[in-house]
């Protein structure tokens, strides 16, 4: 009983159920609004039967040429609703949007190197560790840039792991 719909400004007033959890960062308003203004199709919220917020995903589409891709900026699920494959469902939706609306080559995301639970989950969803980004998180922790090819990338070139780690300034996008 999960309703997935577009995230709206008013949801910001009631996302505490999700954001009070330590694993979820609360960003400033402009951050959420700029995602809503630019990629509203990529900002989705899941609600339970009493309209409780179960979780949400925010993402964007960016890049040029064969780097045109969907990006997962944040995916989060409230503690009460974990272990029921909600993150997977939200990720699939984002992939569907990347394929159907934007015809992207792949979807990527960044994850803390120490967050093995999440890394394992993404692997199960078909993502590979494409490259390591040195000291990506506040200059303290490395990130894995993980990728999954979409149909357009028939030979799955986007998923061939890079043989070296890169520095954040080498990233193609912010």
């Amino acid at each position: 009983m999960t309703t997935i719909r577009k995230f709206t400004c008013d949801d910001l007033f009631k996302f505490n159920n999700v954001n009070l959890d330590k694993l979820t960062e609360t960003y400033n308003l402009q951050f959420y609004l700029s995602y809503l203004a630019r990629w509203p199709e990529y900002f989705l919220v899941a609600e339970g039967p009493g309209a409780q917020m179960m979780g949400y995903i925010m993402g964007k589409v960016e890049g040029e040429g064969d780097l045109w891709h969907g990006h997962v900026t944040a995916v989060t699920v409230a503690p009460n609703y974990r272990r029921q494959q909600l993150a997977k469902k939200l990720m699939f939706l984002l992939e569907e949007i990347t394929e159907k609306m934007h015809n992207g080559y792949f979807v990527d995301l960044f994850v803390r190197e120490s967050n093995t639970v999440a890394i394992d989950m993404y692997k199960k969803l078909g993502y590979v560790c494409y490259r390591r980004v040195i000291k990506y998180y506040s200059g303290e922790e490395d990130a894995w840039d993980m990728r999954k090819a979409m149909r357009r990338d028939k030979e799955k070139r986007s998923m061939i792991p890079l043989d070296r780690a890169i520095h954040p300034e080498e990233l193609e996008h912010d």
Partner: protein
Amino acid sequence: MASSAASRAQEAAADALDRRVRPILDQVDLRNYKQAVKLADAAIKKYGDHPLYRTVKAMALERMGRKQEALDLVTDVRSGPLNEHLLGMMQPIYRNLGRYDEATKGYEKFAAEDPQNPERQIQLFNAYAREYDYLKQQQVAMKLFKQLGREQFLMWAVCTLELQALAEQGGPTGGGARMLQLAEALLRKKMGLARLEGLESLLVFLSILELQHKHAAALELIQGPAGALFTLPADKARVEGELQHKLGHYKESAAAFASVLRISPDDWAAFQAYVDALLEYREVPAQTVEAAVASDAPETVTALEADNSWMGPGKRTRLSFDEVERRLGEAHDLVAELQAVVVQSGELLRGLFLAKVELEKRRAESGEQAGGATQGQRRVAEAIVKYFDRHGTMVSFAPDVRQHVLFITDPGVAGWLAAQLQQAAERSAAAPDCKPVHALRRRIAAAQVEEQLGLVQQLPDAELYARAERLAEVYQASVPLLHGVAPRERGPAEELLVMAATCLVEGYVRTGERARLLEAILVLEQGLFDRRWQSEYKLMLVSLYLHAGAVGPALGWYRLLDIKHIQAETMAHHVLPALLASAQRDAAAGLLRELAAFHDGHLRDGADMTLTAYRNGTFSKVREFVRFKERLERSHQRLAARTESLLLRLAEAADNPTEAQALLADVGFGREPLAWSTSDRLAALSFNEDLATRPWWTPTPEQSLLDAAPLAGGAARQPWHAQEAQSARVARDARWRRSVRRRCLLPRLLALTLDLGPVSAAQAGPPAAEQATHSERGPAAKASDKSGRGKGKKKSGNKSGDVETAAGEKREPAPTSNGAAGQKRETAPREHGGENGCTAAHGSPQSPVDEMRQLVDEYARTLRPDTHAGNAPDAGPSSPGGAQPLDELSLAVFTTSLRIMEARDVLAGSGTSTEGAAQAAAALPAHFQSILARLHGLDETLAGQLFSDLPTAGASLRLLSPGRALPQLATLVHEAAAWLLLALHSWARVFPASLKRKKKTGTEDDGSADARTLAVHALQSLVSGVEAVFRSWADRLTQYLAQADVHALAAALKAELSPTETGGPSSQAGRVLTALQSWSRERQVAIMQTREQSRGGGEEENDEAVLVLDLEAVLRASLESSSEVLEQIRTASLLKANLFKKLNV
């Protein structure tokens, strides 16, 4: 050749300019503003007066707070030749000055110079958007569309038309309707020529039709070629289903939603909509409800709730029961069909299984079946048991079925369901292949439902306590299951401690036994020791600690929740009211600043996000963003924050009338707060708090069962999990509005009180008095007044929210000594007099005494609202549980000020006094006495609650739940007394002159002289009386604190919390803690060690700083708050020294 040479030369010049400007900008970036100004001046001197240097200089001046100079300079630059680069640099300066209107003039001028240049038009459109001037935006958009024919610009025009329609008073009718028609016509014309290009354009078109209730046209639109713009088929089907429902085409609507479910079988909203359509629910007249809520009419809301046609929980369909059965049968078939597919796919989708429960509930709601309501509820219960068999191990089981469980009100059914779930849980736990964590989850789910059913709340004391103990034991036994669960992840049994603490708090609410409160605190602390990221424990602790007077730990845990940005708006209610009523003024001021920064920031920059939406073609977001900005602008929290931070600063100036007057000058001498809280604005307030995060015992900031403890004798109580009825909410909001209005009256009442100057026979009458007063004002007052005038100008140029933004901008530091402020000094007092003295807020002439009379009347009315439905006595935003006696004290103070104003002629001894003045003068002694009497009354009440049974160890438990006494004392000392002291300062200036003259002449024996003498004596005895009360508070609190032996108190409490074998409920105290083994400390030491080892693993270790693990620490925290209040009392006593000198006391 020649032209390329010229352009090379131009480039070279630009490069040179850039090279020279760069170092100045670098200094601005480094925040070396002084240096930047110096460099800019040097550059002007050396290279000539280029506007770029001056603009950078203005930028630096603005940043260093020299706002007027910055404004003058940048406006001067604007009058010269402009270019895009220059405008781009000027724009942020104007933004920081809050003067988008001035920035716009630059863009207007630039666009007019080359009217066919689309880039310039776009910039002009942006400038109008920042001012939320929709009409001018529309004009520019139409011009762009005509010129370039692009859909983007057409949509800009359509969006701005929609915004104009929505901005119309009372919704899109009248002029608004014409705007919508025009928008629709534009879109249709475009579609006649070419297809719509994007989904966002279609969404806006649908919204335009929706606002006009043209559902058939909307349906036609999406069924036509434009429907292809929906990329995801489910999205289109959803819109179609909604439109069909609105048109009364229920069958088609159900079919559309069924198709959504076939694509997305777990979509609960689609399932609900599908059943709504099947059962032919009529559409919710949402606007009617909203209007009733907004118009503050609880009766209307109640009536709407009772209306059967209103779709909502517990409402009925109009179909016959047989027909309902038949149609629900259809729904069952669809669910079965989808279940089969889902089960085969192996996907984990719980929706289709809960759907069965929902269908039973719908059936029961439709009534008139055999067996009546009980039978219906029983079938819902049976469906829940089946759902439990399949999904009982899910953490979300209880939240998922909450609505359905709350539907069961029959005690027999409730008992049956609880027993069934418990048995089912035990049965599955006994199965050989049952994983321990699954067994645990089922037990927890069963216990949660038992609580939701209201059964736990009904348990007798002893059983309630036994339950808490049992839950703690289960928790304890579950600790090994935590192994391998990352610290930030949810543990498998966290809800158990929430439920255990709930039983303890309920015990405290019933009995008032403080040991239970303490035990609840320690249980939650223990829980946080194990799972330190658990936010529910923290929020419960915040509330319990605040009640226990331990503000420090409450604030500590609140801070660890890392509440920020928009959460300041939705979550501050957990602590803000209590902090304002505590001695922790700095913490309160900090929170208020955070709130102000959040709001000011969005009001300033929010338009840029709307511009991003226009630019990126996400047109449906334009309206959403504008509404969001308006919702924040109308936030009740924002109003409270502005008012309270002003009052906080005024109260700090209790002994410094000059400073208080400067603060008041900043807000139009108290008139701005009146304008913030006009009845229109109050009606439009938006209440944005997230109350769902509050513990059950305090469902709203103004209600707390803890304060009412003990609530023995089965007093009628709301169920813990009850949802607030709309009518209750309306009544609560109305109380809040009245209360904030009362707070908003204070600044003006104080301004008028402080304006009482000394009177003498030679210069009787208000004008002279005002002059005397104003001469005391410092440069700060003048400087801010100056900026206030600037703002006044702005108001007229701005369309929406002008007065609102006004205050925010005014809070600027006074300019350091500079020419501009100095020059203004001479004229300022006169202007103050003109503004403050005789003109009412609305501009019609009104004498100060008339205005005072009117405001005092209004203040009194807010304390005694009409007693029609739902108008219980108020609780102020700053005063949990209400501060009625303190407000009465303030009322007495302002009434006295009014009488002094009325008696002015007599007090001046002018000999021409009217009868009214004579009467007022004669009444003064009684007024002074009444203030003192009120203070004594408060003293008695508070002392009775705080000190009566000092200092036995058992009684000192009072420290652990001072309830409202300590906050009241703190508020009294800090605030109510502050208004009294400020008034005394002002009154003292009125009297000595007349007193001295009496001494000189000695022989004056007329009645007015007697009246003066009597009044002066009464005032003197009031002052010494006030002093005596303060001194006695200080003495008693000092003694109290000196005698509070934390160690002995803790020992006494420990004894009380040690389980004994003898009978009686209190003998069970401490068992919950014992179950958690917290006394042994062994486990704590072990956890400490593990944590020590894991240090450096990326976890923030300073979190342990606030862990309160023992009784002594809780006690110390509570005592600390008392000490802080004592400190305040001492300060307040010292402050009065000045005053006594003035009055020769």
